[in-house]
């Protein structure tokens, strides 16, 4: 056929657009990362406009590598991404299996369940950290206060009081502290993305081969064995896809980190870039290049994992 070139032609707009989208900013970032470039400086005003005369080589990279938060940001972002993935996949599978069979109100439950997925990240973060997790004003604070109140009144009750006086008062957990802020982000993002996993797993469960299950029943497989040996393997491809898509999104978490603790105890490279970008664009750009490298390492890893799935 003469239109062998057509397919390439049809791909061109998408490819060219993405190429521009990637290359031009990336090129500029690369350039900035090798020069001295700050937004404002009273001491060295010559650094405030990007120019080759401020060439610095790998100096910005050196500076970033020496930053106390650099390694922490990488390690921490891997930790939160992996935790979120782990939780969403587990919860997603369990919930998908739970609601896959019909029961009264299945439609409504499904609607309730997937709602968090539609919430904006900033709203999600504000909602959780202020109104739910806050140790005093949030639901957590209210609940802990309530429970403590009940325990206290029971301690004063005649007869059983001695038993309840053995009970400790509950301490609310602060989710903005250095030690815990990562958990807060993990919780809220898990809440938001579990529905996505549920959606995909549910779709996949609907295509599960019923005859296979019947065969397994005849082979003497218990419900657990059916889940373990049939359902889980059946879900391996959707799991890979959920992992892939979520990893793409969660590597660049920003609003949640900002809102929960302003990077205290919980940081990733995008956030670190944001911190540098207050003034030091050179350092921010160098961090950006590191982030691109990290993203590509993760990408290669992920694509290895699901590349075959993709083309099958």
């Amino acid at each position: 056929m003469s239109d062998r070139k057509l397919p390439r032609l049809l791909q061109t707009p998408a490819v060219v657009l993405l190429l521009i989208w990637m290359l031009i900013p990336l090129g500029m970032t690369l350039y900035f990362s090798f020069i001295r470039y700050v937004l404002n400086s009273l001491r060295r005003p010559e650094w405030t406009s990007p120019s080759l005369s401020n060439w610095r080589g790998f100096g910005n990279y050196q500076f970033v590598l020496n930053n106390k938060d650099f390694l922490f940001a990488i390690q921490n972002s891997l930790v939160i991404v992996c935790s979120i993935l782990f939780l969403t996949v587990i919860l997603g599978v369990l919930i998908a299996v739970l609601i896959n069979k019909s029961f009264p109100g299945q439609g409504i439950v499904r609607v309730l369940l997937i709602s968090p997925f539609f919430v904006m990240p900033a709203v999600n973060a504000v909602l959780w950290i202020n109104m739910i997790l806050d140790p005093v004003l949030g639901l957590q604070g209210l609940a802990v206060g309530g429970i403590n109140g009940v325990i206290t009144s029971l301690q004063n009750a005649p007869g059983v009081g001695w038993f309840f006086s053995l009970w400790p008062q509950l301490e609310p957990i602060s989710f903005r502290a250095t030690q815990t802020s990562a958990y807060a982000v993990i919780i809220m993002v898990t809440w938001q993305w579990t529905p996505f996993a549920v959606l995909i797993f549910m779709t996949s469960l609907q295509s599960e081969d019923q005859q296979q299950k019947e065969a397994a029943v005849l082979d003497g497989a218990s419900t657990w064995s059916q889940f373990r040996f049939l359902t889980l393997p059946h879900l391996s491809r959707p799991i890979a896809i959920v992992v892939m898509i979520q990893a793409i999104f969660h590597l660049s978490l920003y609003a949640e980190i900002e809102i929960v603790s302003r990077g205290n105890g919980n940081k990733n490279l995008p956030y670190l870039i944001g911190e540098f970008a207050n003034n030091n664009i050179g350092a921010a750009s160098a961090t950006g290049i590191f982030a691109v490298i990290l993203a590509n390492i993760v990408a290669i890893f992920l694509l290895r994992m699901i590349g075959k799935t993709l083309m099958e």
Partner: protein
Amino acid sequence: MAIVAETSRFSKVSRPVLAWIVGLLFFFPIFWMILTSFKTDADAVKPEFLLFFTPTLDNYLNMTENYDYWRFATNSVITSVFATLFTLFVGIPCAYAMAFNPSRATKDVLMWMLSTKMLPAAAVLYPMTFLTKSLGIFDTHFLIVLVLSLINLPIVVWMLFTYFKEIPKDIIEAGKMDGVNTWGEVKEILIPLAWGGIASTALLCFIFCWNEAYWTVRLTTTEAATLSKLIEGNRAPEGLFFGRLSAVSAAAVGPIIVLGWFCQKQLVQGLTFGAVK
């Protein structure tokens, strides 16, 4: 499967109960937000539970009065709709070519596309600001539509690709024999056939566009500012205005949640990413 299902008591009693509990738990934060949006800011932080408050519409009135809610909402709708359309417009031909005329490079191109999604936005904020300002497109609907399209294009192409791949090649070839040209192939065969997939792709794309909050906040001032920016303008004002914040949040996510509810069937069926089978 009748036997298997019915012999277990779990299915009859525990499953629905458990499912309802999980569903309500997941929805609870949103419910709480909506509830809070009808409280005064003072009531919102009071320890009294749920019902002991007098509902008020003040927060919503305040929002539409002090902030131009409708303009933000209109912008959100415009940019999300056009970005979705544009993404599909560019993405469909691309996915079509990849699915029906795969070359050795197809897989790599797809992978590369996905990897562009992993570029941290913060790293290119300054370059983008420079660039868009010098082109004079900063804070225009055009720019936001373009950016939203570009960040969603990889996922859209991937999703469409997986749907198109499920269309038997035979049907396309039958079309060729029947004398359709490429455009006809897309219009008469591909789009009608993959309609379910395209619809759920569009829906997902729309959701992602609506919720995008990095570029829509940073590349706009007034003209093209979307609801994300309204949220940014209400996050952490002077005082913890849970009520007001909840109202703004509810108004920002409300439309998309309702849309999601109506289209949930579509989503449930369509979100396969080629993972079915």
